[in-house]
């Protein structure tokens, strides 16, 4: 018979919450949590009370009202009668544009500079050190303003291109105009985009290669801009005008991209087949012309069928017209952010490479690998594990630094929603909260994508 019994259970006393170490830490945490919640609640109620006293209850109705201001750079149709919400979207797209361009350029530059800084060539190594130290030790705002000033002051104004004996001329066989208002580059267009000088659709499409045109997402019969889209006859019937639908998707572009991707996939299959044959017989069939042809031929034929052409910039009136206008505000911001962030990325890449022990290089060269392949196959894949996490922070920094855009008049989300909209409506709290939310969302998305990539390159342990 068992004689051992459970020790008598002590009754729980309230004082144990403080004197008993088993409960004390929990008590402290709960008290701290309550204090924190009270503080937050007080802040919120204080703000709400003060705003109510001022007669400015938080409301987001202003987002639906007409914005009334124009934005020079826009990736979707926008005019000053569109809502503040749409103006904010134009701003978000501009932020994303400069962030993506900046991250890509900064990564390429950063990797090259980071590798070169380890170069055995004394001059190259020192030059890269100077680059890194100069760029990372001067505030990025100064770089933005400095590059903008250079672009404005040194490049020719459009009026210098005019006259019989112009001071400036267009570059690259008269296809690119570099001015102090920005760079005008040829604009790739499809047959459906052909319009006359006034921007109206041509009555009779030129030839039969008119392409598929644009599809307006969210078009409705109530929208006067969509009148022509629903019409069955008359000039430009079936074509959505600017402002019809929430945004328009170019079906031509989608088709061209689909053909290109299919071509690349086919090329990949050909390579796999060649690999199989090589593994089986030891002889690799010559496939480069097949692979090249399967990508380029269908793509080129599709482009031709869709009436693909380039619109070249030409001086008309005060400015260059036609072509894509890369404004110098975008160029200055993009260059400054890329050069600045590249300095940090270079250091990260250098640290990542140095973290791989020299024995790896020696072992690889003992196996007979050439130096370039050692870098690509042995060193970089391992270094990536060290490089990716700090790289994420730098992408986030670059994206957030893009909010300095207003210094050069680039209309990003800070310039539209938290700038002009805030000023014209006087809704500081709402606009800034929305702006913070947008930056938070963008940053979290970047983090999520990069973390997913980090997981895919990390060491797989068995």
């Amino acid at each position: 018979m068992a004689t051992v019994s459970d020790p008598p259970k002590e009754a729980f006393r309230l004082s144990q919450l403080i004197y008993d170490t088993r409960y004390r830490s929990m008590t402290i945490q709960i008290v701290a949590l309550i204090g924190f919640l009270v503080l937050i609640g007080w802040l919120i109620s204080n703000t709400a009370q003060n705003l109510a006293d001022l007669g400015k209850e938080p409301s987001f109705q202003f987002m639906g009202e007409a914005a009334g201001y124009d934005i020079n750079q826009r990736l979707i149709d926008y005019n000053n009668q569109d809502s503040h919400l749409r103006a904010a979207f134009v701003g978000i797209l501009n932020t994303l544009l400069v962030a993506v361009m900046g991250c890509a350029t900064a990564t390429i530059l950063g990797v090259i500079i980071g590798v070169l800084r380890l170069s055995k060539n004394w001059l190259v190594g020192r030059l890269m050190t100077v680059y890194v130290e100069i760029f990372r030790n001067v505030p990025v705002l100064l770089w933005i303003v400095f590059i903008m000033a250079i672009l404005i002051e040194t490049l020719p104004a459009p009026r210098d291109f005019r006259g019989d004996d112009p001071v400036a001329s267009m570059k690259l066989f008269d296809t690119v105009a570099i001015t102090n208002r920005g760079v005008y580059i040829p604009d790739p267009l499809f047959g459906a985009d052909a319009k006359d000088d006034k921007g109206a659709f041509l009555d009779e499409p030129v030839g039969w290669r008119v392409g598929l045109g644009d599809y307006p997402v969210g078009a409705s019969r109530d929208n006067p801009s969509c009148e022509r889209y629903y019409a069955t006859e008359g000039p430009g019937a079936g074509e959505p005008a600017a402002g019809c639908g929430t945004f328009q998707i170019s079906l031509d572009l989608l088709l061209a991209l689909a053909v290109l991707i299919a071509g690349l996939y086919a090329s990949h299959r050909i390579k796999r087949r060649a690999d199989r044959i090589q593994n089986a017989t030891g002889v690799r069939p010559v496939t480069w012309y097949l692979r090249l042809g399967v990508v380029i031929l269908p793509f080129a034929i599709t482009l031709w069928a869709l009436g693909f052409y380039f619109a070249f910039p030409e001086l008309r009136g005060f400015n260059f017209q036609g072509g894509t206008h890369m404004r110098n505000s975008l160029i200055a911001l993009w260059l400054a952010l890329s050069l600045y962030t590249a300095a940090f990325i270079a250091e990260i890449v250098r640290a990542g490479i140095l973290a791989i022990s020299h024995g790896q290089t020696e072992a690889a060269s003992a196996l007979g690998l050439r130096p370039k392949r050692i870098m690509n196959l042995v060193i970089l894949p391992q270094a990536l594990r060290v490089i990716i996490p700090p790289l994420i922070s730098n992408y986030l920094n670059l994206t957030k630094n893009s909010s300095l855009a207003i210094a050069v008049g680039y209309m990003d989300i800070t310039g539209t929603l938290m700038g002009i909209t805030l000023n014209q409506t006087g809704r500081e709290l709402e606009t800034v909260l929305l702006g913070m939310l947008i930056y938070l969302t963008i940053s979290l998305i970047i983090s999520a994508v990069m973390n997913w990539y980090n997981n895919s390159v990390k060491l797989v342990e068995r």
Partner: protein
Amino acid sequence: MKKTVFLGALTVAGLAAGAAAAGTLDDVKARGKLNCGVTTGLVGFAAPDANGEWHGFDVAVCRAMAAAILGDPKAVEFVPTTGKTRFTALASGEVDVLARNTTWTLSRDVDLKFTFVGVNYYDGQGFMVPKALGVSSAKELDGATVCIQTGTTTELNLADYFRKNNISYEPVPIETNAEGQQQYLAGACDTYTTDASGLAATRATFENPADHVVLPEIVSKEPLGPLVRHGDDEWGDVARWTLNALIAAEELGITSANVKEMASAAGNNPEINRLLGTEGNLGEMLGLSADWAVNAISAGGNYGEIFARNIGENTPIGLSRGLNAQWTDGGLLYSPPFR
């Protein structure tokens, strides 16, 4: 016992809240200094000189207010604000009054909750272009690149004007007048638009002002004036009547030269006597000393003197009185009676 302590704490908290909500006038008197929001630098209207001392047409309004309230025209802390930061600065209480050529509009008055205390300059939006461009009318600006300060009413007027005339333009947003000047002079924009007075002031600082013309079109009404927060009417009254005193002084012939003499004894014009405090108790009604208007006028002279010294025809800015003449001279300046 415990209850008493709680109630006592509540009382103290209530008193503290009451003190914090006291009038701006008392705050300014207690501080001994007037916080005044001005531009970041627009010659003639508000700009610091080589010694860091602020001068200008808008600055004079602040100095007159400081003189009227505190008796010292130098007791002003000038806070430079941009077109974007000015309203936040005023709404948050960082400045007591904003004298920063700000246009009086319905939405700013009603929606942003500010009180415009009057108009010290009747202006309108204009365009400046280089003479070499060969443009003689704003309607010829189709396709032009336009430099414009963001966060201003001019931005909305510009959009309206081009929409109304069915012509296109490319806006280049800039943050301060200095940046606008730089871009305009480098040819990064074809035309610079802001209030006509601001254009004249900017042009005056150019190396060759004669190479630039202000186009004849005035595309908007821009009544510029000082403003205060809603909800403190006593403070609004002080600002409003200080401005009116300067305007009335010109009408009544009171100048910085003769104000001391006229205030020394009651004269035979009862309105002058009431304004200068030798008769009646207007100063007391405002919560100021009896000689408030005397101080305000001796700070920088009457409206006409301030205008002539800072932006008038004999200055580099060279603005004529135009709409800003007294009503008796065919202008719009008209002060309500001091009674």
